[in-house]
């Protein structure tokens, strides 16, 4: 029996680094300090994971050797004119780096799941900048915490206790020293932990943010209510924000998934900019997968662009709406796909997912999924932070090196190794043609 301490969790963007995991005979038997979501992952994945590659031949799925699967995967990718390399948010930064080289070699597009989560927030930051910080600063200093369009008690279960409202920091004793506001169209479980819920009419975040900007500038609101919120309540919130010592807005996909998308986030960042004329205020996205932030970091330092990077011209191009995965698939432009650490068949609108299912598809993923049922080649890989090591970026952009706790199954290797092998094979095939 081995007890691993200070284990970094590879579930959500919180990347909690205090887990205590007990392993015995190659199995995880205990997971201390893990949230219930992470506990399910750590204790269930070995029962549900895939062990051997599967390829589809004449419409029939059958198990294959790793060599046969890699060979078929390389043939599919090398034969494509404009492949999409998509996913990446649940793998290591080292694997993403190899994936970018593969995309360049293939003249394809590499996009991460951020294009369907916080991509619009990144586009907003291009437009108006960003005033942000690390989670440690929030824990030590924040006295006003606003969760906007997110549900941390269900999606980022330890965010409040480790980094924000309920945490004890250098200058804050804990919950009693902090005011917590929830802004959402739903009255979710998270609002029970807040001092106040401000419930907006669906799709009216942009209007509400701009009303708040007016109130912060001490300008009169002519309307009686905005987004279903009475003007007096907006003015009260504005006063609370102006009079705090250190405030932060944590925003979720409630802002990026609804009407307004990038403009909602641009307005929220502008609100924070206005507030910094009066006090200290910051903003941070609640990133979902454990290394979705890493996909943007690695693509930016490798290509200059954070996601949706197109190499078809021989150099990197970036134009969300044109080079982003859902748009490319909906228009039927890609002729093959490599999916890594993601399940786009389940998580994309079905018209885009249907187009994906119609083209040859290679999948690197440890567990069975909707995408796995349709992949021409499915190669199960080692799980980062459990079966292999790798660098991930926490939601605030702090890089963390994860630990290996147990050995992966015989035929399951880290994404980095599988992608490096695929890259060599693709180079060989393209060199020969």
């Amino acid at each position, binding site marked *: 029996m081995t007890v691993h301490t200070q284990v970094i969790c590879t579930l959500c963007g919180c990347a909690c680094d205090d887990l205590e995991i007990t392993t015995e005979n190659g199995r995880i038997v205990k997971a201390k300090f893990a949230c219930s979501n992470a506990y399910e992952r750590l204790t269930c994945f070995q029962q549900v994971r895939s062990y051997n590659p599967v390829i589809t031949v004449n419409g029939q799925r059958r198990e294959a050797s790793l060599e046969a699967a890699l060979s078929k995967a390389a043939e599919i990718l090398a034969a494509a004119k404009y492949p999409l390399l998509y996913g990446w948010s649940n793998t290591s930064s080292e694997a993403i780096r190899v994936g970018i080289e593969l995309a360049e070699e293939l003249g394809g597009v590499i996009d991460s799941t951020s294009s369907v989560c916080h991509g619009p927030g990144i586009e907003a930051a291009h437009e108006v900048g960003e005033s942000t910080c690390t989670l440690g600063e929030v824990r030590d200093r924040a006295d006003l915490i606003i969760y906007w369009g997110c549900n941390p008690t269900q999606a980022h279960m330890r965010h409040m206790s480790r980094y924000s409202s309920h945490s004890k920091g250098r200058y804050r004793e804990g919950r009693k020293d902090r005011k917590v506001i929830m802004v959402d169209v739903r009255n979710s*479980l998270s609002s029970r932990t807040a001092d106040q819920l401000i419930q907006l009419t669906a799709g009216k975040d942009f209007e509400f943010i701009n009303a708040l900007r007016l109130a912060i500038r001490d300008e009169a609101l002519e309307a009686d209510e905005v987004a279903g919120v009475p003007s007096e309540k907006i003015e009260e919130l504005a006063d609370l924000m102006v009079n705090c010592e250190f405030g932060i807005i944590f925003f979720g996909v409630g802002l990026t998934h*609804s009407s307004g998308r990038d403009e909602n986030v641009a307005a929220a960042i502008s609100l924070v900019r206005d507030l910094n004329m009066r006090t200290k205020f910051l903003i941070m996205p609640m990133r979902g997968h454990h290394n979705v932030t890493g996909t943007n970091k690695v693509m930016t330092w490798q290509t200059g662009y954070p996601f949706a990077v197109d190499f078809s011209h021989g150099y990197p191009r970036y134009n969300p709406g044109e080079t982003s995965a859902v748009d490319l698939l909906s228009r039927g432009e890609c002729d093959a796909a490599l999916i890594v650490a993601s399940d786009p068949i389940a998580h*994309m609108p079905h018209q885009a997912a249907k187009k994906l299912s119609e083209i040859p598809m290679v999948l690197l993923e440890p567990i069975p999924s909707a995408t796995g049922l349709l992949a021409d080649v499915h190669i199960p890989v080692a799980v980062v932070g459990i079966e292999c090591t790798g660098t991930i970026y926490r939601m605030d952009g702090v890089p963390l090196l994860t630990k290996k706790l147990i050995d992966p199954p015989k035929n399951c290797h880290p994404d980095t190794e599988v992608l490096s092998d695929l890259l060599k094979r693709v180079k060989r095939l393209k060199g020969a043609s």
Partner: protein
Amino acid sequence: MEAILVTGTSIDQARGKEHGKLSSQYKASCATLHMTEEDMHTLGVKPGQSVRVTSPHGSVVLTAVKTKEPHAGIVFIPTGPWANQLTGPHTGGTGMPHFKGFKVEIQPAPTEKALDLKEIVKISYGKKKS
């Protein structure tokens, strides 16, 4: 009845997927329409009964679940292949589809039941027949 649909992560969906996407837990957590008691009364359905939800982009049968929080007129489906039968692919030049805050029509569907993942994949996706 007409309602505003929000799709997103839920605790049951997050836990359900860790039991495997092909598991009964995943279907039980995702193939669900969460609505208030008031909305259920308006629609004439009880928790556990089937409802058909239709958007301009598709239609899907789900199991009705009563929510604890009051937000009448707003219904919720956990992220997954069932929810995405209803979402549209248009991104408005941002790369981001519209996952939250659009109108849907809900009807009782007493003679239908939610499909499982394999059935959805078989019916909705797959290579073109040559």
